[in-house]
């Protein structure tokens, strides 16, 4: 005689789990990781490995010995944080920098709030901003890193955004500055100097397409952010092209693509409804442009996302999905 189970419906489950979703995010980040390692050599690989290891270990230790609860590092969410943090640092940063950043990301930004699903701020971004304000020199210097396989010319010095900010401060105009700066195709494929993950727009977009195909994320947030940045910076640029950088430059430089595709779409720290997501994304776009144009930092994506993270509970409360049968007013 069979032992039969009885339970309420549904009696079957879809294929997705937290782990498969996080695994998909890691797969989507692989092109960016590859570009980073190809362009910057072993130091980028060391950063990724150190980041993932520290994040996973921190979460494990806290869950096992501090909370004494179930250990859930197998859901891969800590590993995702580690990779994202690594892609947010200069590729030649020392290994101990990311270790500190990872401990802050997981220990402070994630676990103090109760772990996965409870945190208000994106852990990787908290880690990055912590490092940015604590180690400003290390976080904004891009040393001459040896290209790993000699495929790509190594770069040195400041990022394009940093160079622009510095130049404008010194009274130069943009046309003088951009003469020796980057062409579009360079930006798109490989050569935008910056954090490990900011190197290639193409690699990030490949990851984006993968996430869309796997239905891990929807296009709403990234597309809205990019459109906002394009339109707002476009207005400024048209008003004064000598003072303000052009929209295409703004989209393909800095961490905008990495931030909009992989950080602003973080489930936990983004709104639940399409309406809320649009407001959230427009906010990120606006803040990014304003920090870049008027702030003291050359880059504003991290700040923009963290600031908009604060609004998520409110957006969730007031932006309700379209109910079935509701008449549009």
């Amino acid at each position, binding site marked *: 005689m069979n032992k*039969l*189970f009885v339970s309420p*419906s*549904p009696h079957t489950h879809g294929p997705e789990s937290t782990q498969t979703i996080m695994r998909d995010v890691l797969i989507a980040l692989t092109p960016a990781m590859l570009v980073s390692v190809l362009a910057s050599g072993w130091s980028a690989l060391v950063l990724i490995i150190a980041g993932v290891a520290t994040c996973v270990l921190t979460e494990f230790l806290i869950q096992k010995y501090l909370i004494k609860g179930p250990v859930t590092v197998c859901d891969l969410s800590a590993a995702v944080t580690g990779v994202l943090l690594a892609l947010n640092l200069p590729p030649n940063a020392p290994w101990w920098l990311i270790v500190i950043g990872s401990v802050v990301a997981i220990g402070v930004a994630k676990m103090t709030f109760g772990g996965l699903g409870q945190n208000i701020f994106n852990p990787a971004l908290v880690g990055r901003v912590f490092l940015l304000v604590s180690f400003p020199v290390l976080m904004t210097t891009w040393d001459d890193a040896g290209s790993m396989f000699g495929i790509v010319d190594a770069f040195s010095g400041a990022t394009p955004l940093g160079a622009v900010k510095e130049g404008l401060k010194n009274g130069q105009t943009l046309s003088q500055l951009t003469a020796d700066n980057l062409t579009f195709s360079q930006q798109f494929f490989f050569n935008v100097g910056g954090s490990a993950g900011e190197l290639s727009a193409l690699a990030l977009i490949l990851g984006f397409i993968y996430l869309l195909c796997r239905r891990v994320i929807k296009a709403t947030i990234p597309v809205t952010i990019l459109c906002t940045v394009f339109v707002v910076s476009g207005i400024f640029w048209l008003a004064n092209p000598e003072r303000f950088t052009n929209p295409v430059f703004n989209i393909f430089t800095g961490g905008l693509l990495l931030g909009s595709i992989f950080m602003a779409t973080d*489930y936990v720290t983004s709104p639940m409804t399409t309406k809320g997501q649009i407001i959230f994304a427009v906010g990120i776009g606006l803040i990014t442009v304003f920090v870049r144009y008027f702030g003291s930092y050359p880059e504003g994506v991290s700040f923009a996302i963290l600031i908009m993270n604060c609004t998520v509970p409110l957006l969730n409360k007031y932006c309700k999905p379209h109910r*079935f049968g509701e*008449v549009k007013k």
Partner: protein
Amino acid sequence: MKKTFRIGGVHPHDNKISAEAAIEVFPAIETAYVSMAQHLGAPATPVVAVGDKVKVGQVIAEPSGFISAYVHSPVSGTVKSVGPRADIAGNMVPHVEITVEGDEWMEDIDRSDRIISEIPYSPEEIIEKVKKAGVVGLGGASFPTHVKLAPPKDKKAECLILNGTECEPYLTSDDRIMRERPQEILIGGAIMMKALGVTRGYVGIEENKPAAIASMTEAAKAFPQIEVVTLKKRYPQGGEKQLIDAVIRRQVPSGALPIDTGAVVQNVGTSLAVYEAVQKNKPTIDNVITVTGRCLPAQHNYKVRIGTPMSKILEVAGGLPENAAKVISGGPMMGRAIANLDAATVKANGAILVLTEAETRRRSESACIRCSKCASACPMGLEPWLLNKLSRAGGRYDELEKERVFDCIECGCCSFTCPAGIPLLDMIRISKAEVMKIMRSRPKK
């Protein structure tokens, strides 16, 4: 572009492995256990006593209220007992037990294969015939059909939608009857249209049933008022509200009845039962049941007399395999797990599904990652994650009501989708029952 409903929905693997199994007549049984609660509403009152001789199609119970239905003997023989017996969930329900002797039918039932397409009856006569035949909605809710064919005076029906979506995975009984008996289904539809006084009819069929679409489209050539609509494959398209939205682009407002959109939805199985009731004088005494499961040696679509024990059906189908872990009446999304295999079939049973442990294992629950996939999947535009949270917070029923927990149709899309394996629907059901109770207890204005 193929039509579908506009909010939410999921795409479970359709697993229609029994689709090619033609309908077989189930062998004669020895004893029939006929439930008095085969319909929504008050259980029927038995009108036979122990020792009475009954024929196939003879009335054995009468409705005991406005929303109730007649019950007929599905077999011929002697009434052995009248009393409580366990249903599939183990609840004690009044049954009439009949020992089968031969197969003698009531004389007025037309048992020939001749298809009668003329409808000489008035709407009132049709409704009376449907009522007398004990026809109930065979899509699952088992709402008495004659009640649905007579909408309240202040509502106006504009069209009839026949539900051939069969959006639940595994189920194929509607697919089979649409392939094998399309004309009768459409005549049944025409009969109901006449009763409702409407001139527009639709048959909604999902695209994963091309053979059924072909046969129904072919047969529909003789019915210019009825249009066969091919729908995209998407669960829960067979939900009454979703189907109306998919076919005529109208959404039933919260708290309103489907009739408020002008549409009356009937399952294709019900349509066939209406045809038999009106044209052939045959009451609902049998139905087509899919017996399926990847672990079963063979897949079947049986035409089974009502009152046949589930265990008997499984035995004839080849027995329950060693690795069977769950037997479900209905599909995997909304079906009910059977606690008592000796329970007998009722009119609205459409399938017996056998799943192994691996196929039906519940995931262990982990933390909500706020992916909002449940909200995207919800066909009613609710936020299951929030309802779950409020439900677990205990007693926050005013908020749950404001979040429209009572709109939940219990389709299971949220639990199915949740990557964290949270039993969202379980939690919603708990608070929904509570909220409905509170709403009902309020004085009416």
